């Protein structure tokens, strides 16, 4: 086996700065945004296929999740009173700017869908809002992949070809998990389908991410830029997430007649998605702290 390239650094100091995002706010923001966006997808699909009870649950979870997501974002700002400055400009070169505008557009629509559902007011407008939220929801669930990959953190940045699919899958399995947890098995068939598609997408996309990053030039003998995802605390968190995703996937398929098994599978998928987001966040932090991940691949390509 080729040993890892020797490298020098300035007293072992990191080259890039670690993100200043708080270790709870941003993973919560990523998880809740995914849960909200994919819940709107589930709500629209369930409503149109006549699964009214599941649609209601999904609309309410979308509103709850996007509210918590926005709260986490504002809480994380250094100067929260200036949140509104996010809407001073629109910059496609800034995923944070794109996300703020998406949030500003999506929040009220998802809110209208949930309020109309719960109060029974303006049902036609409610249906339109449900479909509108279903349309913007996918962007809300996936843009956060651009948010973390558009940085100089090598394990995030170099994973930009796979991360959006990991996030889409993780978001779907979270929303489907909440649906399975809340709905009667007879009404839960759309959630079950979304759970299978989402969990499978997440597991496969994460494997592809690890495979690409493992082959980082200069770091062949360790796990390359995949190391932060498989080692240390982040590695443990992601491994547990993977097991819970697989368990949730199995439970969703096998437990279609049992309320208890479905609920357990749903809870497992929800927890898995939260752990996945937290693990990916922590992996990026660990990657930023070690100059090896920045210097060696750059030296190898130079």
């Amino acid at each position, binding site marked *: 086996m080729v040993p890892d390239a020797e490298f*020098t*650094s*300035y*007293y072992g100091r990191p*080259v*890039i*700065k*670690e*993100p200043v995002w708080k270790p709870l706010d941003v993973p919560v923001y990523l998880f809740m945004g995914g849960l909200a*966006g994919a819940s709107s*997808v589930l709500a*629209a*699909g369930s*409503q*149109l*296929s006549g699964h*009214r009870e599941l649609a209601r649950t999904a609309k309410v979870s979308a509103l709850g999740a996007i509210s918590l997501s926005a709260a986490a974002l504002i809480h994380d*700002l*250094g*100067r929260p009173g*200036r*949140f509104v*400055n*996010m809407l*001073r*400009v629109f*910059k496609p070169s*800034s995923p*944070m700017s794109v996300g*703020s505008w998406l949030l500003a557009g999506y929040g009220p629509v998802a809110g209208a869908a949930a309020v109309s559902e719960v109060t029974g007011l303006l049902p036609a407008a409610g249906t339109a809002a449900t479909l509108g939220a*279903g349309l913007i*929801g*996918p*962007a809300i*669930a*996936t843009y956060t*992949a*651009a948010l973390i*990959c*558009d940085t*100089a*953190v090598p394990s995030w*940045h170099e994973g*930009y070809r796979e991360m*959006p*699919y990991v*996030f*889409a899958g993780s*978001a*779907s399995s979270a929303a489907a998990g909440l649906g399975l947890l809340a709905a009667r098995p*007879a009404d839960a*068939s759309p959630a079950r*389908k*979304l759970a299978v*598609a989402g969990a499978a*997408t997440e597991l496969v996309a994460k494997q592809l991410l690890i495979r690409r990053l493992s082959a980082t030039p200069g770091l062949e003998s360790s796990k390359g830029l995949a190391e932060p995802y498989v080692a240390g605390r982040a590695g443990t968190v992601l491994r547990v997430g993977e097991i819970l995703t697989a368990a949730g996937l199995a439970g969703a398929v096998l437990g279609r007649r049992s309320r208890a098994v479905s609920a357990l599978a749903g809870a497992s998928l929800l927890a898995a998605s939260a752990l996945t987001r937290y693990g990916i966040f922590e992996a990026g932090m660990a990657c930023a702290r070690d*100059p090896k991940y920045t210097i060696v691949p*750059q*030296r190898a390509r*130079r």
Partner: protein
Amino acid sequence: MSIDPAARAGHVDHPPRMGFFTDTSICIGCKACEVACKEWNEVPEDGISLSGMSYDNTVGLGASTWRHVAFIEQPDPASDSIRWLMSSDVCKHCTEAACLDVCPTGALFRTEFGTVVVQDDVCNGCGYCVPACPFGVIARREEDHGAHKCTLCYDRLGAGLEPACAQACPTKSIQFGPLDELRERARLRVEDLHEAGQDSARLYLDDPADGIGGGGAFFLLLDEPEVYGLPPDPVVTTRDLPGLWKHVAIAAAGLAGAAVALALGQRQ
């Protein structure tokens, strides 16, 4: 062909692009640049302690350290003693600046001099610029929660003065001027050093074809960039953003497709 960043940002009839050429071969490690920068820009004190890293006690660039002098003691192959490398680091004022690209508020902007500056009254402290910078330059200050970095003394430039660090540098290791002239001067300096037997002298971030479109601040180094804590081949993260958005769009379309598939699914 080098890009004119001020013109690209919409400045018409703008002055020539101004920058720094830091020639580390004549740096004596006096830290006058650090002090002058702090004094002029009223940058707060950020810890007075010993780091154990040779004479370096500021450790690296940060929200309250806009010039940082690195000290490296190495065995000198030419003699039995040590070789002492000293280098004053600063914001690179990249031609393609990731911090500016990702800033969601427009607090970071491109000046008429082609430099990159934070507007403190606009910054909302989101911190996105911090991990975007490939050099780890910009950072958030604990006290006011805003992002801060070198402004290349935007106020002094406007008044026809040179930046405080360049003015204070006693050996002209820090040179300020129009970037074109600095690049020419740097090329001649490297040639001189090579002729004098300093084979390890090389320019860093002088090339408009590099991953950041060349630095508005560039350097003459006597060893590999990473020895000084600099990345060997930095690339602005937003170069891959079109590809990244493409994958986000495909993933989002897949999710929207899931909604349609569920809608068309078996009715209850």
